[in-house]
């Protein structure tokens, strides 16, 4: 049980690095979507006996994070005619190394934290820290608005991973609320991207720093 769980979390941690290393926007989106889907499966693995509520949360998460949000992002990519190269502010190799050292640091940190005995052997906490840091790196290190959205999604995945520790005590309503918030946020960012595109003819957020009339 814990082995399968750790395998999936390990895959999610690998996808962090894939998102940091890929130079094309569609592959960053794909990495974030795949990670969301993997995390959607996790509640089913954590629960020993099947509960319908957990099943609903899992299906909802997989649908929203794996299909709805990536679809919205791809549509924005097509509609705004963005060129597909990621523009890194932090280069690919440095961000990959930073992400990897964050992952190792997270594993080392997870070993020293006073966790509950049932969580001590799992990668949940290190995976969550590593994913949050990778999300931050994407948010800070990429100039294009779409890759920042992906960074935001990965950041949220990390927080979700942390929330899995409390899966029994979080009500369904909270999970649903988070998913709804996430979708709305992606909508809002999509509208903002559209405005940036119209105003500046580019999605490079660096342009936003220069004031003008």
């Amino acid at each position, binding site marked *: 049980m814990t082995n399968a769980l*750790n*395998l999936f979390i*390990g895959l999610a941690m690998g996808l962090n*690095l894939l998102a940091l*290393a890929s*130079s094309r926007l569609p592959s960053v989106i794909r990495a974030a979507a795949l990670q969301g889907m993997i995390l959607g499966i996790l509640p089913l693995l954590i629960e020993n006996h099947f509960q319908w509520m957990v099943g609903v949360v899992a299906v909802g998460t997989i649908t929203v994070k794996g299909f709805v949000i990536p679809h919205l992002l791809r549509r924005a990519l097509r509609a705004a005619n963005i060129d597909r190269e990621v523009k890194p502010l932090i280069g*690919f*190799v440095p961000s*990959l*190394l930073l992400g*990897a050292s964050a*992952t*190792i640091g997270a*594993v080392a940190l997870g*070993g020293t934290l006073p966790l509950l005995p049932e969580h001590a*052997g799992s*990668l949940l906490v290190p995976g969550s820290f590593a994913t949050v840091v990778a999300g931050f790196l994407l948010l800070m290190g990429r100039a294009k608005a779409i890759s920042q959205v992906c960074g935001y999604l990965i950041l949220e995945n990390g927080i979700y991973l942390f929330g899995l520790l409390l899966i029994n005590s979080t009500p369904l309503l909270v999970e649903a609320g988070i998913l709804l918030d996430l979708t709305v946020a992606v909508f809002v960012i999509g509208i903002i991207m559209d405005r940036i595109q119209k105003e500046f003819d580019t999605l490079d957020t660096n342009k936003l720093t220069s004031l003008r009339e």
Partner: protein
Amino acid sequence: MILRLAVWLLLAPLLPGIITKVKAWVAGRRGPPVWQLYYDLFKLWRKGVVLSTAVSPGHVAGPAVAWVAILGAALLLPAGPALAPLAFRGDALLFVYLLALARFCTSSAALDTGSAFEGMGAAREVSYAVIGEAALITALLALSVQTHSISLTSMLAPPAAGAGAALLAAGLFGVLLAENCRVPFDDPTTHLELTMIHEAMVLDHSGPPLAAILHGASLKLLVFSVLLAQAVMPMESLSPLAAAGELGAAILLVTVGVGLVESLLARLAFRRVPLLLTTSFLLNLFALLVAWKGGRL
């Protein structure tokens, strides 16, 4: 010992032949015979040496020393059921240093010609080696942590396959491709000056030294295939014959894999190569992490 030496020497040129054959099959051609490199080596051995007036004796000595160094590294490796001909505590370090010595000799022999072109090839080779060697050392470190030993014979007998072994296999395969100048890193068949690394370094060699370089390259490929196979596959519990068969099958699999990679992938742009090498380094690093945490996680 002599027999093992002969097996290493005789089997090595087979590997590039198999790779070429796989590439030819994927492309729908018949391709040169698998023995082509043997004919080439024999032909080169009979030819004379053409030397530039600028070179020092190091130009001829370089390939010879490199060849001997790679052969020494090969003798340190255990192969399937047979233990390594040379084994002592800490021979993993000597293995890394022998490979580094071979690289140093090839690139210094290239620099010796005074040709800017070969200097460029040598510069590229050693700058990629910075990450490639780090990746190799990390892989050996992971094996060492896994088995609590620094002798190759016991390091290369992994307890069981797992996530760490998968990471290590992927990482070592990347190192193998990079160290042997295979396709996503370098194209061994190209002769365009913008894309060559290894080929650029050996342009001025001819006759027996070139044969030593070619044979050394195939020997290096065999060394890395054996290292990859031994590092990942548990074969302690098998009978000697089964272990030998498994090792042979693994080497064949690696070789066919290299051939498939070469047929299906294009060569990477130069600026993307460090990223891929860093990826193999990180794969090995995570294998090290798994080995380190393995007991307690």
